[in-house]
């Protein structure tokens, strides 16, 4: 049998997505409440950010609006992981109860099949919020708006997303080996909060950790440098798209390795 093409997977995904959204909308109260909750989460996040910067107009040479740019950038780059890979949060439960086995019997990619099952619509609000913040800070900083810079932003947003997805995949996949993988996942989830800040504010140890061990510095900091500090771009910034792809590929391999050695519980 021939390998299934990317188009094949896109078509399947589109159908599952359409059905999923349709069924979610049919639970109206649920839909409205989660939308409101999402708005509040974002507003609260922004307020705490704003309070912090009223006290410190600049951090380590980063102005308020530059920090806002970083903030918006991280919100947008977190959208794909939120929307498309949210089922990773349930992976642990599926594995623990043995329900994961149901994903093993379809003639399509296991990783794809598992992730396609859930689309978290709440992520879209975060996306809108992030884009708003990004546009606003862009204006305030007075950045140019050229096709090249737009291209850069898009490439680096994708890069950042890939890294975030990779981190979450890897963290979620630990449940194939350990019982309490929730803490691993939660740890990564909490760490990503630090992605909003320029890495230079941390001490060298954390700087090293956030660059090479849990590479959250690639989520917003290194990519933003390309846009915000065009005169002095470290090599790591240019390498970050490559890092993104490599991290994503590694995390996928790790996830699949766990999934294929999975053998379920008795029944």
């Amino acid at each position: 049998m021939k390998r299934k093409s990317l188009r094949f997977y896109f078509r399947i995904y589109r159908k599952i997505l359409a059905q999923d959204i349709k069924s979610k909308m049919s639970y109206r109260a649920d839909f409205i409440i989660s939308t409101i909750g999402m708005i509040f989460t974002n507003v609260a996040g922004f307020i705490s950010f704003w309070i912090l910067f009223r006290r410190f107009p600049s951090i380590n040479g980063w102005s308020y609006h530059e920090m806002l740019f970083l903030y918006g950038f991280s919100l947008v780059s977190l959208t794909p992981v939120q929307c498309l890979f949210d089922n990773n949060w349930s992976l642990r439960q599926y594995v623990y109860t043995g329900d994961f086995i149901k994903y093993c019997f379809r003639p399509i990619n296991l990783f794809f099949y598992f992730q396609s099952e859930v689309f978290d619509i709440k992520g879209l609000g975060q996306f809108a919020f992030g884009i708003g913040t990004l546009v606003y800070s862009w204006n305030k900083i007075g950045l140019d708006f050229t096709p090249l810079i737009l291209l850069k932003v898009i490439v680096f947003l994708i890069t950042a997303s890939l890294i975030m997805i990779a981190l979450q995949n890897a963290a979620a996949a630990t449940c194939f080996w350990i019982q309490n993988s929730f803490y691993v996942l939660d740890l990564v989830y909490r760490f990503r909060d630090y992605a909003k800040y320029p890495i230079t504010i941390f001490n060298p140890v954390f700087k090293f950790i956030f660059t090479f061990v849990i590479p959250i510095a690639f989520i917003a900091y290194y990519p933003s440098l390309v846009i915000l500090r065009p005169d002095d771009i470290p090599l790591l910034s240019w390498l970050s798209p490559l890092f993104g792809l490599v991290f994503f590929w590694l995390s996928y391999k790790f996830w699949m390795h766990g999934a294929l050695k999975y053998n379920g519980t008795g029944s």
Partner: protein
Amino acid sequence: MANIIEIKNITKEFKVLNRREGLIGSFKDLFSRNYKTVRAVDNISMTVGQGEIVGYLGPNGAGKSTTIKMMTGVLEPTSGEILVGGNVPYKNRTKNAQEIGVVFGQRSQLWWALPLIESFKILRDIYQIPEQNYKSMLELYQSLVDIEPLLHKPVRQMSLGQRTLSDILAAFLHDPKIVFLDEPTIGLDVSMKSKIRTLIHALNKEKNTTVILTTHDMGDVDALCRRIVIIDKGKMLYDNDIEHLKGFFGSYRTLKIRVDGDLKEQSGVIQGELPDMKVSADDEWISVLVDEDKAKVIDVLGQIQKSRSVRDMKLEEISTEEVIRKIYEEGVK
């Protein structure tokens, strides 16, 4: 009849941690781990032809699930060969998945939030079922079960029976060569059980699909299977026709009689008259287990009637369930 499944001497071993007892024991386990090897499936061989329905039986923990997982490609055998529809399942899991259907009685594989018809459409795309086949399959379903009320209902709102029915329909949708059914009637009421048995039977007849059925319900076995395979502790105990099974322990029938007087006391007396047979009594009946190879039931009854009058009697065939239980408990001699 071509063989669709060929299994030759497969064995599956698991490494299991020998856990120590108590808190201190758990602490020790952290540092020195002591594994033992458990053989879940031990040197099993069998072949299954296209279109057969095979009852795959065994007590809990016998190794049934492990065998099924090896046939579906989820597990790799430790040793031995396994071919399902010409594929080595664990080496070519995706290709194997295209040829098989799987139903776990208690675990729906359908999209929880979607109505059944939408699940069917997605499955049509995943398995790349030609439009013609898809349509004719739906027509077949319509002729077999009352599918209309199910089609537009989200799976999460279905009753367990409806869900199982839907899962079975979904498993057959891409016209697989083999369908594995793991306890499909577990937890269902009598009428739903019979509906599901009829459906499985009809689909097997219509599509010549091979069905491997694990169950603890002998009703399923009696209704569907001509051949049964029994395993216990990983070893094959029995692989033959179901008729053959009933003669397995000799051709036993149980003669039940009611006589005047205390049944317990009377049964003792009768036991004395019939030393070759097993006589027992409960509150209502005296039971005499008759080995028909040795004596005819009618002669036994005659002998009993010589010295007392029998008020009532009935004759019980040994059921599949009893035979299976005997095999589980005593093994095969």
